[in-house]
């Protein structure tokens, strides 16, 4: 997959950072304003997809490889599980997913609500990396398999995919 035209590339340079920033804001402020880990993660994934669509697969090879994406997907899932297990350390009665809401901050601040922001962050990383990984898989993996599967049309499909 090659990149797109100069106009698309320049617009992407201007916009992609702000989209990713908005995604991070949605993730980090999930416990204060509407949003949360899932929505913010999808926005971050959208920014990455925009960059890959505009600049081609060179970006995914040189900046964020598919291995990194898969690793952060798994790391996000494990971090969420870790937050759940962290609940066993609760002061009075430890339990799975126990929260520590009283430890720091007042409701409405960024630092509040105990483990909820940490869970949001883990889910954001997990969802963003997962969806971006699926996009990479759809965009990059598919072509070779198709060549082998559809032998009669292989040449035609390949020239179309190159376009």
């Amino acid at each position, binding site marked *: 997959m090659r990149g797109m035209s100069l106009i698309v590339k320049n617009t992407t340079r201007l916009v992609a950072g702000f989209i990713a920033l908005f995604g991070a804001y*949605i993730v980090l402020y*999930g*416990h*204060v*304003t*509407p*949003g*949360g880990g899932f*929505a913010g993660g*999808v*926005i971050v*994934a*959208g920014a990455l*997809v925009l960059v890959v*669509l505009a600049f081609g697969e060179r970006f995914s*090879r040189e900046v964020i490889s598919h291995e990194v994406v*898969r690793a952060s*997907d*798994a790391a996000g*899932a494990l971090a*969420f*599980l870790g937050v*759940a297990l962290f609940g066993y350390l609760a002061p009075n009665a430890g339990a*799975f*997913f126990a*929260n520590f*809401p*009283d430890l720091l*901050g*007042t*409701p*409405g601040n960024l630092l*509040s*609500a*105990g*483990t*909820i922001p940490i*869970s*949001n962050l883990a*889910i954001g990383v*997990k*969802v963003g990396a*997962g*969806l971006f*990984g*699926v*996009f990479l*898989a*759809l*965009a990059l*993996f*598919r072509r*070779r*398999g198709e060549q*082998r*599967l559809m032998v009669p*049309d292989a040449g035609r*499909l390949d020239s*179309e*995919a190159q376009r």
Partner: protein
Amino acid sequence: MDPVLALLLVLIGFMVVGSLVAIETRGLLSSVISVGAVGFALSVVFLLLGAPDLAITQVVVEILVLVVLVRVVITRRDETYATSRSTLAVGSVLLMLGILVAVVFWALGASGGAGLQMRPFGNPLLNEIGPAATMAPVGATADAQADRPETIPQSIGGAYLQEGLKRTHAANYVMGIVLDYRGYDTLGEATVIFVSILGAYAVLRRIGRHSHARDEPDR
């Protein structure tokens, strides 16, 4: 009529039409675009019903899915198959649908008369606080009975609204419920996403993992 309700009805009609177009249209690309239009209408519906969290999620997921689907569809050869439908099957399905609509209309008491009364729009059950139930648990003494509050929320949602901020310190009640009260649920959802993405990788990877596949130059 309530303007919000009127707008909702218009949007729902638009979604029904869009879904039908998505199913019946010939081109794969126009089908994908119709699905996208239905999704955006759904996000506006969520916004009107007072669920901004869902609306945000719906919009961003819709955009990403639309991009991915267009990317997949646009390089694939568009093959359409002409299928003929038997008149009897379509006619009986339409007849059954009509009977279903009539029964639902009667059962929900849309005319305001007999039948189960549907709650009025915009006044969900979880907003209501009613008198405490009179049935005491088995073995409860009179003292325990006296300790119980006069009024209790009618549903579990009311309890969340009363206690949520105090217990979880999360100003966004949705997150307080999703990540605190219902943490198990969210963990299960995360597992579902994880497994489905794993399945996508397994399906989409190169056919087989031979050693000579790595020798090909990476384009």
